[in-house]
């Protein structure tokens, strides 16, 4: 396959004559999962290695475990700005989102409303309940006019779910505005906010102001995988999905994942301490990365229209004439781990429902790349990305 050999040489040349593969690993997929912070791992270890207690028991070791998760509960309550009594620990963001929609709808009648760019963990339960899925603007945010109309015209709306930050694009939604609109036009309805991608970057009490339910998950802000939260404001009635021992005030049965919950609590404390500094540092790196890529690869554009508010951690780009899968493959060969849209359970890249809802042209969407940064990201990571990505992208687009 001399074509391929030439092609490979071309790829190598495009990287500035580098003949040997770099050993550098650059992780730019933090929106998929961020590594736990060292302090978090340290806090978790004793609860993995030493303490056997089940928090539902009555003896001393059980009480120790109970105290540990309740300390975490306090930390999470402070992070979210809701009462500790309303913090329900779950296995993660998906369970929290599912519990919010299915738990609020319960067995009674009632309509759930969300918009088309929500995470599938919200979209699917809303669709399954024959709920209303609203259109979005070019930034992927809920269409407030359509929401007002729906709130005025549809009877028995029980839940409105709105994500604080989109997981693919990093776009920030006007949650507080949605909440006040719901309070005014459909005062009986509960507002749920999927704040999974917001926790690391935005002050949640102000971002999710007016929301009655908030979902977060540990591994998006320096905590471990396997622990999430649905936080409730006051006594919102919630039908449990998991039944049994009645843990989490009958809202989520099952022995709590103590080590992960301890880690989640520690991550909540840490993110409140240094969120602002991290956000400023990461924003500067993201902006440099984004500007560098836009300037060096012709036909590249930012997927999110200018002026639309985003978190500092994500740049979402579309490369003209490039196939995402090919781009990701070659980036990985150069040590860069990133993603395009979301992956399905087979590991294949799926076409993005978010970009489709935003009206991004199919061909542009096929060449999308999401680079997401977080607390461990360094300037050297950005340097490496800027030295590698333009050459590969140009090479792939030239080949089409």
């Amino acid at each position, binding site marked *: 396959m001399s074509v391929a*050999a030439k*092609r490979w040489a071309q790829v190598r040349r495009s990287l500035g004559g580098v003949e040997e593969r770099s050993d550098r690993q650059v992780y730019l997929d933090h929106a998929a999962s961020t590594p736990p912070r060292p302090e978090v791992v340290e806090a978790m270890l004793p609860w993995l290695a030493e303490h056997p207690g089940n928090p539902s028991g009555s003896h001393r070791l059980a009480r120790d475990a109970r105290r540990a998760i309740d300390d975490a509960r306090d930390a999470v309550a402070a992070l979210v700005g809701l009462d500790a009594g309303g913090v329900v620990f779950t296995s993660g963001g998906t369970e929290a989102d599912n519990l919010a929609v299915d738990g609020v709808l319960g067995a009674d009648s009632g309509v759930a409303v969300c918009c088309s760019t929500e995470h599938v963990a919200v979209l699917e339960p809303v669709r399954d309940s024959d709920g209303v899925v609203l259109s979005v603007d070019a930034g992927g945010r809920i269409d407030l006019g359509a929401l007002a109309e729906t709130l005025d015209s549809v009877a028995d709306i029980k839940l409105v779910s709105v994500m604080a930050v989109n997981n693919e694009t990093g776009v920030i939604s006007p949650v507080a505005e949605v909440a006040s609109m719901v309070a005014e036009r459909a005062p009986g309805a509960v507002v749920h906010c999927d704040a999974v991608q917001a926790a690391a970057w935005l002050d949640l009490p102000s971002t999710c102001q007016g929301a009655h339910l908030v979902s977060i998950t540990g591994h998006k802000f320096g905590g471990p995988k396997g622990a999430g939260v649905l936080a409730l404001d006051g006594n919102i009635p919630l039908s449990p999905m998991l039944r049994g021992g009645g843990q989490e005030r009958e809202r989520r049965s099952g022995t709590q994942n103590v080590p992960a919950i301890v880690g989640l609590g520690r991550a909540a404390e840490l993110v409140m301490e240094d969120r602002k500094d991290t956000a400023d540092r990461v924003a500067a790196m993201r902006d440099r990365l984004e500007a560098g890529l836009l300037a060096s690869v012709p036909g590249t554009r930012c997927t999110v229209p200018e002026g639309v508010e985003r978190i500092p951690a994500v740049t979402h780009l579309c490369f003209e004439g490039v196939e995402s899968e090919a781009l990701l493959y070659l980036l990985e060969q150069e040590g860069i781990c990133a993603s395009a849209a979301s992956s399905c359970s087979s590991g294949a890249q*799926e076409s993005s429902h978010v970009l489709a809802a935003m009206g991004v042209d199919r061909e542009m969407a096929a060449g999308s790349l999401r680079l997401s940064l977080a607390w461990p990201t360094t300037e050297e990571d950005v340097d490496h990305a800027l030295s590698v990505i333009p050459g590969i992208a140009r090479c792939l687009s030239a080949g089409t």
Partner: protein
Amino acid sequence: MPVGGHLMATRRVMVAMSGGVDSSVAAALVQETGHDVVGVTLRLWGGESDSGCCSVSDVDDARRVADALGIDHHVFNMSDDFNRHVVEPYVADHAAGRTPNPCVECNRHIKFDRLLRRAQSLGFDRLVTGHHARVVEISDGTRRIARAVDPGKDQSYVLHMLDQEVLACLDLPVGEMSKEDVRKRAKTLGLRTANKPDSQDVCFITSASRGGGGRREFLRRRIPLTAGRVVDGSGAEVGRVDAVEMVTLGQRKGMDLAGGNTPRYATAVDTTTATVTVGPAADLFVDTTPVSGAGWANRPVEGRVLVQTSAHGKPASAFLQVESSVEEGQMLVRWDEPHRKVAPGQSVVFYQGTLVLGGALAC
């Protein structure tokens, strides 16, 4: 001479791994030769499936085999092209009363086109699949697909569209082995797919289809199925079918035929008038079959050839040529002995001995 024998320097090889035993062993064989191997599984179908190359469990099998071999594994989503080039034409063919061959179209448009182009754009030197067929070089230096060592498993028929450009960079290592040896090898290597059953034909339709249920349901969701009349040679109605789109030439059952002791077969299907014509076995035999869209391994061929008209059909001798009696772009297969009618849309593949010369579609 097998092309694989020419491999010398370390090459970058992409192995298409379906999650079945053949491609698992293919990956193992290539890896043993010391080349730089990457396994790739295609995600082709988002719908329900329980066989073939599409389901998540098959991807898992491929991934775990790659893990066991210590090679990288990637999943590429080509479901959009699969839908466009395989599923939609499959449905349209049925709607038009034709008999499609989705595996052929998948090979033509997906595995040996889009995947091959992907491999090239990523800098791979060679593509390997687990097909039971061989790539051989003939005396003039060009290459051909040849029948597999294991005649019962030979898949050369579904690879008839491969031309020199593809053959130049393709290796089919398991085509040199019997299926039994492939399974033995997989067992020796401890591969989890060693005893996995062979996949059945249409990978995007569930197994209920094999009795007609799944295929029927699949089509019913996509096209209106039309009830039709069954007539004999004189035009007299002798039965009814509830979906003419489901009737295949040569079919004998499911047409609710009244009376008569001699078996009758569908000899023509006309979806525009929703009519199936039936007749005795003798009516199924023809002297000639027109074909269109011929593609060749190297140069166009006319003259005496062996012709195979189904995946595991018996090759028959015929004379192939362009004739004024057929339409522009068509060729005529003149059978040496009367041959069973070939359902329109089926692949008609031309061989010289064990070598594939090319193929076309029955008109």
